[in-house]
C-alpha cells in the first residue's frame, strides 16, 4: 500500500469531473508524492540527484576525487559506454533493446583500422567506411525487427554473435597497432588543455553527441515519433506515424552511434582490439536503466543515460580511489541497477 494508492483513495472523495493539474501541488499531498510527481515530469532529476550525492560522498572519502584531472578522467572512462548509450537509449525508447551494440562497435573499429592498415586508405575514407558499416549493421537489426516481426531482444542476441564472429574472422583475432593506422583514427585520444587540465577530444565528442541527440528527440518530429512509437506503437500507427520507418531509422542511427563509439575506443586504447568491448552491451544498458529510461519504452531521456554512465563511472573511480576491492565495486553497480528500476516502477505508479 504505497502513498500513491492512498492518494488514489483520497481522490475518490473529490469530484471526478475536474482533473487536477499535475503542476499544481495540493497542500494535502505528502512530500513523497510531490517528489513522485516531480520525477514523473522530469525523468532526469532522479539520476542527477544520485550523481550529486555520490560525488559529495566520494569527495569526502578522497581529496583527489574532485580534482579537475580526476573529473576529466571519469569523462574519458565513460566516453565509450556513454556514446554506446546514446544509441542504446533511442532503441530502448522504442521499447526495444540492443544487445549487439558492443559487437557492432568492435567490428567497425576493426574495419576502420584494418582497411587503413592493409590498403593505406587515408583517415577520412577509413572513418566514413566504418560509419557506413556501423549504420548497415544497425539497419540489419532494424530490418529483422520490422520485417520479420521478431522481438528486438532475440534479433540482437543473434546479430551479436554474427557481428562478433565476422570481427574475429576479418581480424584473425589480431590486434591492429596504433602505429599502423592513420593519425585521424587516434585523434579521439588526443588531448587539449583547459586551465591546466587535459581533456580528450573523445570525451567532448561524447558530450556533443548526447546534446545533439537530446535536441533531436526534443525538437524534431522524428523525436516525437520515436517517443510515440515506444509508448504505444499501435496508437502511433493509427495516428499516421509510419512506425516501421521510425524503427528502421532508430536502429540505423544507433548503429552509427556505435561506430562513433568505435572511433573513441580506438583513441582510448591507441589500437584496435578484436577482444575489446565484449561486455559493453550490458554496460550501456546499465547506463540507460540507471539514467531513468524505462525498458517498457516511451519514457526517458538521453541526458539521463549520460548521467547513468557517469554514476557508474563515478562509483568505480571513487571506490577505487578509496581503496575498495573490485568485488564491492561490482556489487555497488548491481545495487544501483535494482534501485534505479525500483524507482522507475514507483514513478510509473503516479496518478496524474
Amino acid at each position: 500500500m504505497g502513498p500513491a494508492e492512498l492518494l488514489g483513495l483520497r481522490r475518490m472523495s473529490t469530484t471526478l469531473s475536474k482533473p487536477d493539474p499535475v503542476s499544481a501541488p495540493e497542500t494535502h499531498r505528502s512530500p513523497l508524492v510531490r517528489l513522485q510527481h516531480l520525477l514523473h515530469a522530469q525523468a532526469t532529476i532522479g539520476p542527477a540527484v544520485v550523481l550529486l550525492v555520490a560525488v559529495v560522498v566520494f569527495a569526502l572519502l578522497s581529496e583527489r576525487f574532485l580534482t579537475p584531472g580526476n573529473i576529466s578522467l571519469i569523462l574519458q572512462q565513460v566516453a565509450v559506454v556513454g556514446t554506446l548509450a546514446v544509441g542504446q537509449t533511442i532503441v530502448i525508447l522504442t521499447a526495444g533493446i540492443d544487445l549487439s551494440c558492443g559487437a557492432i562497435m568492435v567490428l567497425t573499429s576493426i574495419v576502420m583500422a584494418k582497411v587503413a592498415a592493409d590498403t593505406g586508405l587515408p583517415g577520412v575514407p577509413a572513418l566514413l567506411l566504418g560509419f557506413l558499416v556501423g549504420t548497415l549493421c544497425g539497419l540489419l537489426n532494424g530490418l529483422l525487427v520490422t520485417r520479420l516481426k521478431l522481438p528486438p531482444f532475440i534479433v540482437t542476441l543473434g546479430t551479436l554473435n554474427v557481428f562478433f564472429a565476422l570481427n574475429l574472422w576479418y581480424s584473425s583475432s589480431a590486434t591492429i597497432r596504433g602505429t599502423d593506422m592513420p593519425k585521424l583514427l587516434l585523434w579521439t585520444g588526443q588531448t587539449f588543455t583547459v586551465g591546466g587540465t587535459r581533456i580528450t577530444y573523445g570525451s567532448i565528442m561524447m558530450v556533443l553527441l548526447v546534446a545533439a541527440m537530446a535536441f533531436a528527440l526534443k525538437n524534431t518530429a522524428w523525436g516525437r515519433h520515436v517517443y510515440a512509437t515506444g509508448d504505444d506503437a499501435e496508437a502511433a500507427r493509427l495516428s499516421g506515424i509510419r512506425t516501421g520507418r521510425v524503427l528502421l531509422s532508430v536502429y540505423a542511427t544507433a548503429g552509427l552511434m556505435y561506430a562513433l563509439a568505435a572511433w573513441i575506443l580506438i583513441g582510448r586504447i591507441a589500437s584496435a582490439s578484436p577482444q575489446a568491448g565484449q561486455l559493453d552491451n550490458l554496460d550501456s544498458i546499465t547506463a540507460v536503466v540507471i539514467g531513468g529510461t524505462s525498458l517498457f519504452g516511451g519514457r526517458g531521456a538521453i541526458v539521463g543515460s549520460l548521467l547513468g554512465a557517469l554514476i557508474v563511472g563515478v562509483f568505480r573511480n571513487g571506490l577505487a580511489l578509496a581503496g575498495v576491492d573490485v568485488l564491492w565495486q561490482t556489487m555497488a553497480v548491481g545495487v544501483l541497477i535494482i534501485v534505479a528500476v525500483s524507482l522507475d516502477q514507483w514513478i510509473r505508479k503516479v496518478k496524474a
Partner: protein
Amino acid sequence: MARSTAKRAALASAALLALVACGDGGGSAGGGGTLVGLVTKTDTNPFFVKMKEGAQQAAGSTGATVQSFAGKQDGDNQSQVDAIENLIGAGAKGILITPNDSKAIVPSVDKARQAGLLVIALDTQLEPGNAADATFATDNYQAGKLIGQWAKAKFAKEGKQAKIALLDLNPNQVSVDVQRDQGFLEGFGVDVKDKKKIGDESDPRIVGHDVTDGDPSGGRTAMENLLQKDPGINLVYTINEPAAAGAYEALKAAGKEKDVTIVSVDGGCPGVQNVKAGIIGATAQQYPLKMAQLGVEAIAKFAKDGTKPQNTAGKDFVDTGVTLITDQAAEGVESKDSAWGLQNCWG
C-alpha cells in the same frame, strides 16, 4: 502477409547457411589415424589460436587428426563439458584441454579417462593436478618471479625506491592470475604472506591492485585510477601484454611514461614489439605452440604403445619453459633480447 514473412524467414536462413558454409565448418585437419581433441578456453584469444596452429602442425607430422572445440567466453565450462562428451563419442584417443574451470571440469575428465582416453591439461592445471594424466604448461609462478627479479635488479642499480601498481585479471583470483602476481612480488622481494591470495600483502611499497580483464581498455582504466591514488607509481606489473599496452596509454596521457617501468607476461608478438619500442621493460615469454605440439605428440605416442608423458623433474607438470625478454639485461637474471623474442613469439 504470413506467407511473405515465412518466405523472408526462409530466405534469411538460407543466406545465413550460405554464410556459415563459406566459413570453416569442420575444424579438423590431418590425415585420419589417431583422433586428438583440442578444447581451448575460447577461440578468440590469439594464445589459443596459436595453440590450435601448433596442434595442426603436429598432426601433420604424427599422422593424427585434430578436432578443435572452444568455450564461448572465458569461464564457459558447459561448452567444454559438451566437447569432452562429443570427443568420447567420436572415439578420440586423447584430449588436450585448457580448462575454463579447473575444478568443475574434473568429473567430465574422469569420464574420459575411464573410457580409456589420455587427458592432458595445457596452460592451466586441473584442481587437483593429478585429475589429468599430465599437464603441459608454463610455470606461471616462475614467469612472475623472473620479471620481479629483473625489476628488483633494475631498481637497485638505479637506487630508486619502488612504488608498485599491480594490474591483475579479474576478481575471481584464478590460478594463473594469482601465480603471476604473487611470483612477481616474491621475485621483487616482497613478503607475499599467503601464496594463494592476491592482495593480502602489507608492504608499504605496494600502492594497490586493480583488475583489467586482460584487455587494453581495462588496463588503461585501472592504471588511471591507481595513478589518481598515488601519482608517484614507478613500477607496474601487468597480467598480460594487452593490459600493459592500455596501462602505457594511461601513463602517456599523464606524461609519466618515461619514469615508469612496466613488466608483463606472455611474449606474444605485439608484446615483444612493445619491449623493442621501450614501452614494456621486460616480459616473460611462454610457448603455446610448443604446449600443443608436445600434447599431440604425447597422445600419438600413447595411442601407439600406451606410454604416458613424464613430468619435469621436481614439478608436478611438464614445464614448457619461460624466457625473460628484455633489451635492458639485468645483473644475475638470465634473459634474451627482443630480437630473439620476436623470432620465438606467438600471435
